[in-house]
């Protein structure tokens, strides 16, 4: 039995006891009440209005589709998925005899999804807008209807997520209800790129776990998984052209076959999520040499990759050609960060090569990055590079380059002033492995900070939270991601003015608590919101809605 349960019947003077009793009765420990004036949809839709009626939802709700894209399997599979999420618990209570009587009528027994475009192409900037209406057919009607209308199947997915968040299990009636009907929602994302980075090199994450994370991303309407597959510690991915590369995996069980990676990509696509692969060169690549030691400058000095050998670029070419078949997303990340060139200057044959080509090590770094960019572009990819490349040789970067900020604030303003596109990931606020970053710091981080010119603002594609894996493996990764990634997700989806004014402790925090509990309900290991350090366990007993 547990020794820690608080005992409320201590000996206390009577007058204090009275206060104690009152506080016991109203304390959140017993009945946590939500602020009904708030809208518990996360992230907050662009425009919405609600009423004050309560509707019941049929557990056998059916899908009706129309429009050119209505028959897409993306829609029908998502409908089945959300039906399971919504009605997870609404069965099996019959022994209590409280089932709704035969012949009883549910208010909502059908969901209509209209998709105008038949294209299932998923790329950056795909139209994710949708409208969701839960209302009576007309003013005289008593028949309620639920309708999602979108231009693309991916907009329909976002609408289904919102619909699922309107559906709440009511423990009294043991049925699923929609409160505050009628609902009229018009929604679209503020940024086209809303990302989460996963690092499978510092710790291998099983594909099953990657899929769980992708599924949870869809709940927060994130739309890009930045897969940092390979780094200096391990090379888990199969590359058929260079079959020894995945000898750099931690073990023979911590690997991804080509088919595994394809499965991740198609699983993500069914949820409207693009997968951006990263092959980080020339630094962060020591593990490549486990299979091909020639890629190291020498066996004692192993990073960055040997700039002097054509073989190095042959291997990069081979990797990119192989994985181009796996990752259809137009963006591809080439890394380029944290390059310490000491090995180049200290290894005789590389040093000689530098001299022969009249290059400094800094020149060689630029040469390497630009040559890798050309390979990516020749594979019909748009290169993304970490900000060091921009900081060092902005003028020579390919103009199509997307610059990925991480070192600090104020970088995207410089990037867009130079005409490049930018992704915001300032490590001070959006690195999830920084456990001391509190939810409100994540929430208030603004990708457009310091950029006032509208034409420049458009060059900020969006932002991304980064889950670096040094101290997060399967056991810890989800609670480190959630709920803080959700704070960034609302920043990236919702209208700036709607989420940047007022006291966020009153307007956003209760909603984030609610969303965190919703993640828990759906089986996602989201940590308490207000702990001083992220991913820590709760401080003591209490309602999920207050921690």
């Amino acid at each position, binding site marked *: *039995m*547990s*020794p*820690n*349960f608080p*005992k*409320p*019947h201590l*000996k206390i003077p009577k007058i204090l006891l*009275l206060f104690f*009793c009152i506080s*016991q009765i109203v304390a959140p*420990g*017993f*009945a946590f009440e939500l602020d009904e004036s708030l809208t518990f949809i996360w992230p907050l839709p662009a425009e919405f209005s609600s009423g004050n009626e309560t509707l019941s939802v049929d557990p056998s709700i059916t899908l009706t589709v129309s429009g050119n894209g209505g028959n897409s399997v993306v829609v029908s599979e998502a409908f089945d998925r959300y039906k399971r999420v919504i009605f*997870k*618990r609404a*069965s*099996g209570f019959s*022994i*209590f005899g409280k089932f709704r009587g035969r012949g009883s009528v549910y208010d909502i027994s059908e969901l209509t999804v209209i998709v105008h475009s038949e294209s299932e192409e998923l790329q950056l900037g795909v139209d994710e807008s949708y409208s969701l209406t839960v209302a009576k057919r007309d003013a005289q009607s008593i028949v309620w209807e639920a309708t999602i209308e979108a231009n693309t199947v991916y907009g329909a997915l976002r609408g289904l997520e919102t619909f699922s968040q309107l559906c709440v299990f009511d423990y009294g009636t043991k049925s699923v209800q929609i409160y505050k009907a009628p609902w009229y929602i018009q929604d679209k994302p503020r940024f086209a790129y809303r990302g989460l980075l996963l690092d499978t090199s510092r*710790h291998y994450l*099983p*594909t*099953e776990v990657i899929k769980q994370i992708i599924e949870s991303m869809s709940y927060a309407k994130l739309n890009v998984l930045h897969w940092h597959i390979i780094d200096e510690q391990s090379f888990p991915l*199969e590359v058929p052209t260079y079959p020894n590369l*995945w000898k750099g995996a931690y073990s*023979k*069980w911590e*690997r991804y*076959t080509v*088919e*595994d990676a394809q*499965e991740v990509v198609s699983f993500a696509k069914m949820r409207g999520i693009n997968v951006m692969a990263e092959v980080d060169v020339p630094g962060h690549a020591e593990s490549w040499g486990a299979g091909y030691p020639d890629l190291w400058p020498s066996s004692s000095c192993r990073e960055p990759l040997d700039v002097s050998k054509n073989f190095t670029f042959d291997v990069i070419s081979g990797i990119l050609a192989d994985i181009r078949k796996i990752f259809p997303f137009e963006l591809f990340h080439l890394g380029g960060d944290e390059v310490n060139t000491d090995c180049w200057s200290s290894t005789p044959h590389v040093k000689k090569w530098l001299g022969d080509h009249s290059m400094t090590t800094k020149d060689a770094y630029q040469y390497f990055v630009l040559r890798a960019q050309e390979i990516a572009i020749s594979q019909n990819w748009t290169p993304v590079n970490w900000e060091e490349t921009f900081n060092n040789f902005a003028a020579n970067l390919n103009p199509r380059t997307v610059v990925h900020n991480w070192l600090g604030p104020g970088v995207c303003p410089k990037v867009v002033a130079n005409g490049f596109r930018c992704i915001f990931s300032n490590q001070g606020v959006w690195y999830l492995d920084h456990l001391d970053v509190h939810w409100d710091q994540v929430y208030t981080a603004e990708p457009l900070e310091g950029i006032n010119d509208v034409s420049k603002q458009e060059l900020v594609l969006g932002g991304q939270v980064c889950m670096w894996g040094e*101290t*997060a*493996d*399967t*056991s*810890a990764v*989800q*609670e*480190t991601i959630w709920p803080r990634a959700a704070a960034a997700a609302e920043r990236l989806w919702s209208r700036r003015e709607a989420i940047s004014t007022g006291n966020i402790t009153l307007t956003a925090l209760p909603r984030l608590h609610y969303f965190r509990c919703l*993640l*828990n*309900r*759906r*089986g*996602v*290991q*989201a*940590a*308490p919101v207000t702990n001083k350090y992220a*991913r820590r*366990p*709760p401080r*003591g*007993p209490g309602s*999920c809605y207050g*921690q």
Partner: protein
Amino acid sequence: MRKRKRKRKMEGALWLLVVVVLAVVLAPAESAGDVKIWPMPASVSSGNKRLHLSKDFELLTQGTGYNDASGILKDGFNRMLAVVNNGHVVDGNFSDKSSLLSGLHALQYGIDESYKLMVPSPENQAYAHLEANTVFGALHGLQTFSQLCHFNYKSRVIEVHMSPWTITDQPRFSYRGLLIDTSRHYLPLPVIKNVIDSMTYAKLNTSFVPDMVVINCCSYAQKRGINVMAELDVPGHALSWRVGYPALWPSNYCQQPLDVSNEFTFQVIDGILSDFSKIFKFKFVHLGGDKVNTSCWTDTPCISKWLKKHHMNESQAYQYFVLRAQNIALSHGYEIVNWEETFNNFGNKLGRKTVVHNWLRGGVAQQVVASGLRCIVSNQDKWYLDHLDTAWQEFYMNEPFANITNSKQQKLVIGGEVCMWDEHIDGSDIEQTIWPRAAAAAERLWTPYDKLANDASEVTGRLAYFRCLLNQRGVAAAPLSGPGRVAPF
């Protein structure tokens, strides 16, 4: 009295025909030291051949009287297949079809949860062979089979290494429990279901869920061979469920234990147990009875008066309450589990069918069984998962038979349970607090005593492997090194 049938008997022979294919490949010598199964089966022998499973791996049951009406076996087989494939895209094309292993043949054998697994079957090399007396024994056999299977990243096939295998297995204890506390933090159903799935991987068989009535979770667990024992902890620890019925409080400002003087109290207990009996089909119900501070009874005038009238002091009233609750539970066909305080205070008065649930310290089990009562071991210094400083080695070494040498008395120790009290646990961190330490206890409870390691360090490698297997199956099991649930360094 309702007769509770704990195990579903398989009548006659059960045939599991699994189209498993195939090619026997000579593998590098793998020794018995490479057996990675957790918990270690009672008897294992293996060889050095390698088999491949067919892509069309399927279950056929022929020649058995067990009709699997509720699909327990079929579902269990499909789950086994899912964790074996583990999200990988599996290929099934082999050039060498000279020696196909194409099925699994099962017969009746042994009792309860025992099973016998042979891969391949000696009678027909094209089949694997699984014998079990109950469908729940078959589920354990499928679990073991799943742990023999490995995805080969190069050939994209599922392999069984170290064939031929002959495994004869049965649990050492019939009660192998995990307590999940849902009152300090609410745990959503999907979270509980994930925990139940992970319990089957370690062959735990009882989840003990205090203060919670969720029928979905019960049938979900039962289909996986996991019994759900409910707790109704009376008279203390019942503060919250009385919010709906304040009359159960001694007074508004003195709220527990339950009002012993009020007949309504026992009517409510009767009503709850009546509802429980429709949901929780396990033969045991846990009636708590721990840590009763009875000062509210003496501080509340009407109860104090009632005590005087019935010539009871506080401890007599506590005993009266516990025994009356026991009788109510008996009337609903339950056998009773009580926390050890009831035994410590009035052990000789407890119903003889009472199972005493140890928790305060080690050494209690020997006193309980010496008095002829049954016991479940959960000494908090070794088997409380919320004690994060208790390392997995201590979980592994905690021996339920400590100082119990008489074999009749040993039989009264029905097993043990690791406890996941959740003051500091919620949906975000429960799995890593449970695993891998619960697995260490699971082997102690499953594997025959003489096959357990005398020094926990001998099993480090195998447990680390099992922890990675849990990770591969999507369970957030923590690293072995460091205290409980710590993130990797």
